[in-house]
């Protein structure tokens, strides 16, 4: 499908959309004027689509430097009476949380929807925190869609709700909803107003203590109104299939419940909450009438289970709550049809047995994701390891790492990721290691991550006189999430020309004296610079600058010039340095022990020609 259809499809069409694509259609059908994000999977495709369509639709969209800035951009738009949409992955909301909390106090004029894409099972994340808890922490309404159609329809609902309550609305998807494709019936696209007006009202917008005390009280009042709306909401549905067991569920987990009920004919009464916070107590009480037990089916934390237990206690109900606390369902990882079916089966003392399935007994090779062929990070890691070896520092250097493709450096043979917390933490923790140990510290951070949150810890390093090397891996893009522009690129989220922020000037401007820019494809120079940096004191910054291989591949494909390399078997001594040290995935060992380059995988970067001590790697003719 052409992505343009997400904008141009008329009312009443059927599109086959990813949850994230459907979110964009939801924005277009809601008349949203301003959207902002920092890319993060599983929310990334929303930005990728908006990047292509925002201008044509007539809205403003930006890739902000980080999630906090993104939230602030949208909060201001909504204060200016425009509808705004800010979206991020679950841990992005941690970054944005400071302003997120205050936004709840200030409230909104134009509707504001904050989409958080949670990642149960951690397909591409460092944790699986459940951001439904954030709705409770901040005191904002929470909406949970279960499929692409609901993503779109619930976004429209969320804007009306946000404007009715004058509160931002938290919109929680999970990987399985964001990355699920399904049929979406379109509604009508609404034209967004281009500009709003900000009317000054400090008592409303400036939470100094005398104002914030009043604001908190107002927030609690708003939540009471929100609960009334939730009790009546069309997003909360009861499906009664008979029996004395109730199932309380929401989001992606509800899909497994409803599929299991139709497949196995379970006699249960299901309450699916699409508007799940404030917990709609009157609706839940109505649902509970005549039930003996309720199974709560929700992904990750026992959030609704806690709400239900509190309600049962408050009302002194004679009702058994089944869920995570008593082992009916797991508290970690995403659910699937088998987990949910087993949970229901156990709760109704059912006899549905596991279908027979084929069990593979042959041991299989592991297939972890690897740095792409031609990836400049591979060359950087190769050079740093060589310099460290030359200086006799093997095993003594600490490599704090950061969030991006380069985190894959954790794997052998590079092993250049020793410590990882969150975005920007490579330089932050490098400060700590520098002051706490006598070991050398080399931190790796990408260009986009550097602008996201790498600057404050670098300022910290200079001011507090840390001894560290910060390597900024500048591959000219935000590669991991699908190559969105970073501030060091000459393009922005509207697809327009934009000023490039020079990393070199930025770093010099905050007082770093040793700044060297290298092309990592030049192994000799790169190694020399690492040697130099590792033998000096103070803060050293190395900018390893080379475009992501996926960018150069695209250019090569367009120009139809693609050279590849091959091994001259007469020269090759099978020392295997190309495999054991460089570890490019294009190399493989044949059954007879000879080493070869797979021409279909070879990127033609030529880095291996500098690695081979026998000069046995030649251009394939």
């Amino acid at each position, binding site marked *: 499908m052409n992505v343009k259809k997400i904008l141009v499809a008329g009312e009443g069409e059927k599109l086959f959309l990813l949850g994230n694509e459907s979110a964009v259609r939801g924005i277009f059908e809601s008349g949203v004027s301003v959207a902002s994000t920092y890319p993060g999977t599983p929310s990334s495709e929303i930005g990728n689509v908006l990047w292509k369509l925002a201008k044509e639709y007539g809205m403003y969209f930006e890739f902000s430097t980080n999630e906090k800035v993104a939230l602030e951009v949208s909060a201001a738009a909504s204060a200016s009476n425009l509808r705004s949409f800010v979206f991020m992955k679950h841990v992005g909301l941690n970054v944005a949380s400071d302003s997120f909390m205050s936004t709840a106090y200030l409230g909104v004029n134009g509707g504001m929807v904050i989409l958080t894409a949670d990642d149960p099972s951690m397909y591409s994340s460092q944790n699986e925190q459940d951001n439904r808890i954030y709705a409770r922490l901040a005191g904002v309404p929470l909406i949970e869609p279960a499929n692409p159609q609901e993503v779109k329809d619930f976004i429209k609902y969320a804007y009306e709700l946000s404007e009715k309550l004058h509160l931002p609305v938290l919109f929680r998807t999970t990987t399985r909803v964001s990355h699920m494709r399904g049929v979406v019936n379109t509604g009508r696209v609404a034209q967004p107003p281009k500009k709003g007006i900000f009317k000054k009202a400090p008592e409303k917008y400036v939470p100094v203590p005398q104002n914030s005390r009043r604001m908190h009280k107002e927030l609690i009042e708003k939540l009471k109104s929100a609960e009334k709306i939730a009790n009546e909401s069309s997003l909360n549905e009861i499906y009664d299939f008979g029996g004395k067991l109730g199932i309380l569920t929401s989001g992606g987990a509800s899909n497994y419940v409803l599929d299991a009920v139709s497949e196995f004919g379970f006699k249960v009464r299901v309450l699916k909450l699409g508007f799940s916070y404030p917990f709609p107590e009157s609706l839940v009480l109505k649902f509970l009438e005549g039930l003996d037990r309720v199974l709560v089916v929700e992904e990750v934390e026992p959030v609704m289970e806690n709400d239900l237990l509190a309600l049962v206690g408050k009302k002194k109900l004679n009702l058994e709550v089944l869920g995570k606390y008593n082992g009916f369902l797991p508290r970690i990882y995403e659910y699937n049809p088998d987990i949910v079916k087993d949970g229901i089966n156990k709760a109704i003392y059912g006899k549905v047995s596991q279908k027979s399935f084929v069990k593979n007994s*042959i041991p299989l090779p592991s297939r*972890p994701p690897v740095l792409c062929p031609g990836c400049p990070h591979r060359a950087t890691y190769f050079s740093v390891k060589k310099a460290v070896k030359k200086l006799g520092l093997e095993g003594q250097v600490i490599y704090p790492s950061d969030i991006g493709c380069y985190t894959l450096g954790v794997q052998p043979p590079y092993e250049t990721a020793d410590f990882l917390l969150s975005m920007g933490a490579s330089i932050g923790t490098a400060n700590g290691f520098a002051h706490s140990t006598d070991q050398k510290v080399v931190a790796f951070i990408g260009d986009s991550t550097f602008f996201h949150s790498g600057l404050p810890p670098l300022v910290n390093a200079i001011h507090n006189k840390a001894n560290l090397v910060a390597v900024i891996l500048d591959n000219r893009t935000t590669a991991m999430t699908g190559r969105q522009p970073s501030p060091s690129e000459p393009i922005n989220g509207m697809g327009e020309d934009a000023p490039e922020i020079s990393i070199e000037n930025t770093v010099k401007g905050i007082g770093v004296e040793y700044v060297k820019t290298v092309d990592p494809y030049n192994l000799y120079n790169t190694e020399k610079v690492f040697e130099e940096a590792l033998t000096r004191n103070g803060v050293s910054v190395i900018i390893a600058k080379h475009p992501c291989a996926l960018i150069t591949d695209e250019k090569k494909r367009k120009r139809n010039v693609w050279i590849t390399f091959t091994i001259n078997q007469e020269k090759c001594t099978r020392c295997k340095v190309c495999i054991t040290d460089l570890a490019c995935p294009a190399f493989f060992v044949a059954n007879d022990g000879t080493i070869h380059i797979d021409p279909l995988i070879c990127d033609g970067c030529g880095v291996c020609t500098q690695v081979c001590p026998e000069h046995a790697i030649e251009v394939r003719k």
Partner: protein
Amino acid sequence: MIYKIHLAGVGGQGTIKTSSIIGEAAIKQGFNVVMSEVHGMAQRGGIVNTDIKIGEAKSPLIGKGDANLIIGFEPAETLRSLDRANENTFVITNSARIIPFTVSLGISEYPSIEKIIEFLKNNIKNLFVIDAEKIAKEAGNIMSLNMVLLGAAVAIPQFPLRKDVVVEAMKENLPVKTIETNLKAFEKGFEAVKR
């Protein structure tokens, strides 16, 4: 009736593209369809799995022993996905291997293709082993191996989508200049199963 298809492959093989074409074709033929995809870190040469359910299903994931059809783009990945199969599941597998780099590094081992095929034959009644890489090359481009496997799937008994509808979806979803080669690959895959 819900028809459940599991696709297993390696990043770069065109698994997601193939799944999208199946999904688009299902809509054309008037079915409901849901599908799960993999994006992000796992795509960098890692394992790519997609599940498709054609019919009135809500969740896109396929449980153990519950697939009607498994399309394995790579033999080790076919084996890794096998818990979705029961003894009646149809399994199509490509026999051309993609050796993960962990094998070159000596930290894992790849079983022999004979051993893999033997295991599949002993456990799967409805098995089709196809050298999709070879067939794709014959069709003119190794990159069309995903369409070889799609052609094979369409030839499977009980596959719910009509061939002409799938071809129409291919034409709408593949780059214009690759259509001819891809259709040739698709046809060859179809024949490989029909025979």
